[in-house]
């Protein structure tokens, strides 16, 4: 067991973890943050996407001990985040979710696309989402919702 310290959704956390514990299991089992979903556990489906130091990572491929001293954000966070607020609203308006299993990670991936200025066209959004599988929606409405949120957020986020 190794003691790690990290900032989790804005709060300072200390926890003893076994070396092999994945970040996603750490979040789900130790901290009840079950919005981080496990769809494949080998880094393909993207359902476990969270932010580590502001960058999206696969929660199933990153070990909890590798997050020592770092900042982790999950879907349960983002409370005052303008981009996430806009995305949640546009996903609702545009029917961009059905079963909801891919949704938290899809939102985090979408927020990252907008942050990096990579949501300027349908092609760009589609290529940017290649690492997040949705089995329900057929993607059309997800792409539309992201484009809508990106437009609403404007240049202050787009490419900033």
């Amino acid at each position: 067991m190794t003691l790690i310290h990290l900032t989790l959704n804005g709060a300072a956390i200390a926890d003893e973890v076994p070396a092999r514990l994945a970040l996603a299991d750490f979040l789900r089992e130790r901290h009840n943050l079950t919005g981080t979903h496990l769809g494949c556990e080998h880094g393909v489906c993207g359902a476990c996407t969270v932010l580590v130091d502001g960058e999206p990572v696969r929660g199933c491929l990153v070990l909890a001990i590798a997050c020592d001293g770092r900042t982790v954000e999950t879907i349960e966070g983002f409370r005052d985040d303008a981009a996430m607020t806009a995305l949640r609203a546009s996903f609702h308006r545009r029917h961009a979710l059905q079963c909801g299993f891919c949704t938290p990670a899809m939102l985090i991936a979408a927020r990252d696309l907008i942050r990096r200025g990579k949501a300027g066209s349908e092609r760009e959004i589609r290529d940017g989402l290649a690492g997040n599988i949705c089995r329900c929606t057929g993607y059309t409405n997800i792409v539309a919702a992201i484009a809508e949120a990106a437009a609403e957020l404007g240049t202050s986020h787009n490419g900033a």
Partner: protein
Amino acid sequence: MAHERSGIGASLPRKEDARHLVGRGEFTADLKAPGMIEAAFVRSPHAHARIRNIAVPPEAKGCVFTAADLPQIRPIRIATQAAGMKSPLWPPLATDKVRYVGEAIAVCLAPTRAEAEDLANAVMVDFEVLPAVVDAAREVRANSARSEIARGPQDGRVLVHEGWSDNLYIERVVEGGDIAAAARAAAITVTREFRMNRQSGLPLEGRAVVAWHDHRLDEIVVHASTQTPHTMRVALAEFLGLEARRIRVVAPDVGGGFGPKARLYPEEIIIAALALHCDRPVRWVEDRGEHLLTAAHTRGHYCRVTAYADRDGRIIGVDAEIVVDAGAYGMWPQGPYSEAAMAARNLPGPYTIPNYRARHYTVATNKGPLGPYRGVGRPSACFAIERIVDEVARAVGRDPVEVRISNMVPPAAMPFTTVAGMHLDNGDYAASVRLCAELLDLPAVRARQSRGEADGRLVGIGFASFAEQTAHGAAEFVSRGAAIIPGYESCTARILTDGSLVLMVGIQSHGQGLETTLSQIAAHELGIDPAHISVRHGDTESTAFGFGTFASRSMVMAGGAVARASRMLRDKLCRIGAHLLQCDVAEVQCADGAVRGPRGEVAIAEIARVAHLRMDGLPPGVEPLLDATATYEPAIGTGVFSYATHGAVVAVDPETGFVELLDFAVAEDCGTMVNPMIVEGQIRGGVVQGIGTALYEEIPYDEQGQPQAGTLADYLVPSAAETPAIKIGHLHTPAVATEYGMKGMGEGGAVAPPAAIANAVRDALAALGAPGRAEVNETPLTPRRVAAAIERAWAGRPRQGRVD
């Protein structure tokens, strides 16, 4: 009026969304209970083997359970009513033999899933490996004198189940008219073989079970990721030997189902048994490797079709053989028969074909069991008939669009019984072809083809039409020899003391948005805003019996039950309201949250208060409570038929065989739409799953019966990057046999994409000018298969116009 914005026909945003958008959905794997332990399974690495010994390391004693340790578990047994059907017993934990890679042999318990997996890895099983049955078509060849479908030698007799005479679960013939006469009369004869290979349904959430013994209520509580909680209770009662009253099954949020979660699995029985046996909560969460091995596989259809036609391309007969590679066991409750039966009866499609014969064979193999997946037998039937229609068109030199239309059942002939006995109810099928061609701008695609592509790729356009049986009731399932008859759904509608409404429905919703759409129906009937309506589903504790979500049935059946229960409440509201308004019940109306009479109105909230808390205000003879339970079955038990034409535009690289999907359109008619936004979401989701079947998804098996796709790195599913925006156009022909004219539509999106895309690829490759036929009649249309088809078409001759 409130219900115009939120009732039937409104694209009301979903009530379900809020929890998922903040990560507060509750899926089975999210559940924890005090003292919970986790399970992992020891599974067979062999397709077919005798178990000689199971060695448990000393340190794992008491944490590893085999069939011998859990004698209370009974083998899964299917009470099929289909005459002549072989129905093997399936022990949830293997006893003497394993019959597919992934079959469960033992289960291990530990404080964490990782530790449980460590235990599973430490269990040593000694196997006597047996030859495996992997080629379903060869089995048909070996066992049926009548079949012409398979080439190749007969091998030694290996039986999946000892004691059987052969490896056929069942063989049957569907026929109508006189196929021999059609063969004699035909000017054109076209024969093709089609393969829709085995794949997974692959909901993004895998299977999961959490079970515990509730001592206060003396019941076993089983949370499971299932589409069918009520029927799972039926099964658990039977296979655990418990009274149903002692079992509660809950399907919490379910992360996609698509059919594979509409069947009973051994793991569900085993986890429930362990929770009772150990008297501790037990959780099992499937990983993706287990899912690809052991969650129901699908498709696996091989089909040989001969079409007989006249010189105009009018099809006068179809002769088909259908082989379904059904795996080692039938899945409870319906067994393996639905696939072949549905394919055989749907193959004539939306056409007037007068003469037909389909011999169909459901074959046992040493592979994972086959279960339902969006469309069931229909995608392969559609693939076969729609490819054949295109080939007939080519044979007579006509446009496939025109040949398709000329063979379709015209609106004036409706209702129409097809040669395979399907009762098509209404619609204008040809209009869907024209609308789809319009959505894709067919003339513009033809112009682009004649210009050619700068990069040397070949553009093609293809169409596929189908009529989709939905919301089929008792008549259909009886005809299939089904073990249970899911011909109705139920609703208990309860207005509480403050006038808010709870709908408790036996259906289950896992992405279809029924919490929203069923509210819209109640809003339509009662004038209560959906914001004041809760929908409870997926819990046997709070809902009357229902069958769950599958077979494009939920909106018609559960929606019908909600309509009936809401009207029963409305009648009672009016009686109490009229009494409070001191007028005759014939003078009042229930609308916009109130009962209105000639001299005033009384709010539903006030009536609800009286009905529960102030019975002195009730009229004589009217009992307290506002609580009604209704069941609903459609007026036609053979189903109501949605229909659609799908169209695809592709660009094929003639060097690599890579297919890019440029455009895709759906022109469809599902009658009255309760929530058009949700309807379109269902269509688009189905289409992209169909694109997966067409281009990417396959679980191949080698000759030893080893599946070759065990991760999402070798089992490919479509992402946003490979798919275009899906265009949709609607036609509107309300059903006559259902509430409001609704038809089911959940599966249709997945039915036609393989056929439409294969037709588009065929159209593209026609421009090669190769001496042979450049066509691919096998899914998925991988680059390798497309390139091989191009090579075959050149047949070793030098290729002209080759881009080097």
